[in-house]
């Protein structure tokens, strides 16, 4: 059974104890994303400083272990990183999930999510927070 590969210790741990969970103050950029087919939700907030480094990031959400752990792991992976590196992490993680494109950076703990690839209907869960992050960064860097 590949279930052990899917629900690795570290995923369950992040699901039960999500990192960077909560809200920043209302003035901060915010994205709300939802998977309409299952109702999983993510609210994401981010602070980019003048050097384009992710100074702070927080999420709130409801949903399955995969979507919530992935969001939690994501916040850890990008916090303190400069924008260009964050972009590489997003791309690399997307590649990990879809099997397309290249993995150009060390993904560290995020690799625990590799097992999701074998469950195509759950890939959307794993990507939920990342989709929110992408759109948030697009908005922030445009303005």
């Amino acid at each position, binding site marked *: 059974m590949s279930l052990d590969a899917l629900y690795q210790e570290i995923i*369950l741990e992040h699901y039960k104890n999500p990192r960077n969970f909560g809200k920043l103050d209302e003035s901060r950029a915010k994205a709300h994303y939802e998977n309409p087919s299952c109702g999983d939700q993510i609210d994401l907030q981010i602070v980019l400083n003048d050097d384009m480094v992710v100074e702070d990031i927080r999420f709130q959400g409801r*949903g399955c*272990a995969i979507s919530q752990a992935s969001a939690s792991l994501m916040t850890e992976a990008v916090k303190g990183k400069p924008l260009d590196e964050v972009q590489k992490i997003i791309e690399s993680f997307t590649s990990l999930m879809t099997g397309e494109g290249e993995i150009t950076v060390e993904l560290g703990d995020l690799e625990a999510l590799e097992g999701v690839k074998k469950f195509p209907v*759950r890939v959307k869960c794993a990507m939920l927070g990342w989709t929110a992050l992408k759109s948030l960064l697009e908005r922030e860097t445009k303005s």
Partner: protein
Amino acid sequence: MIDLSRYRKDFPILNQTVKGRPLIYLDNAATAQKPLQVIGTVDQYYREYNSNVHRGLHTLSERATRAYEKAREKVARFIHAPRSEEVIFTRNTTESINLVAYTWARKFLKAGDAILLTEMEHHSNLVPWHLLREEKSIELRFIPVTPRGELDLQHLKQLLDGVRLVSVTHMSNVLGTINPVEVITEEAHAAGAKVLIDGAQAVPHMPVNVQDIDCDFYAFSGHKMCGPTGVGVLWARAEILRDMPPFLGGGEMIHEVHLNHSDYADIPNKFEAGTPNIAQAIGLGAAVDYLSRVGMENILQHEQEIGALAIEKLKSIKGLRIFGESEKRGAAISFEIEGVHPHDIATILDEQGIAIRAGHHCAQPLMRKFNVQSTARASFYFYNVPEEIDILVDALKTAKRLFGYVT
């Protein structure tokens, strides 16, 4: 427990492995499986007498027309409709309800009128009325659901004041609750309202008699009762159907067409525009024959027994909570397990060959009422056997263990 396991052999799909385990199909409230008798009827139609119906003067067309109209008669008898021309073939329950909303309700409801629904309705019995309300300022009211998952009928009389239509599900697809539709219909009629019953979950699982219920409209889907996908039914009293304007315009539903106006045909044709879902209606006729042979009383008894057993065994799992504890209920069982999200439950069960559903079950308002985003749902049909419950319970324990909980 009544043993209907001999019918399993008629369902080829059940005889397969999923992820190396024998398939256990517990998603019957979403759609039911098809016996060989139905598959074969559809197959035979295409191999032997596929043809357009009604206007044909040749042998194939005559045979197809006869089979199509025969299916209508079978369906009428199955729900004890007084006249077969009162049976309108649609795509599914959803289209049946929308047909009433687009025709009867748009003609007869006026600003200020109210429609009474319930908090346990499927989206298919909510959204058509939302769409209607975007056109007409009608009011929607809701019969509340009690914590046990039953309709709270205490204030029904007051709720009915000013109501022109009551539209209510016969059996909840989430809670399993079988609603007292006869009582509701009687009260509604006394208040001068018409009654539509959403029978999507009832017709497959229990004997239904529209004359005993005394309702005005009754809607259901073929695919949930061993019939093909792509066919549903709207039954309504002939005099109501005749008063309704047509829904879709096109071939077959007209009497005479001029460039600038048309006269409409009599029922049922008036509501079946264009080439109908011929093979599907004929297949539904075969499903009705099949279910009648199994016996709807037997099916109801089996499901009440297997449902009760499943609930009992599920309750033995610590941290498992069941939604809906109505006395009168079918075998659609929604639950959650503390600490394991329903989607994760579904994935973990699927790895063990068990198909259940997880989500809002197209009943988001009811989810909000119970303050959950989604539930897991195991729903049984007559071909399910008690052994499958044990495997389900074991698999749920595995889920808990995987998530680090003791079981």
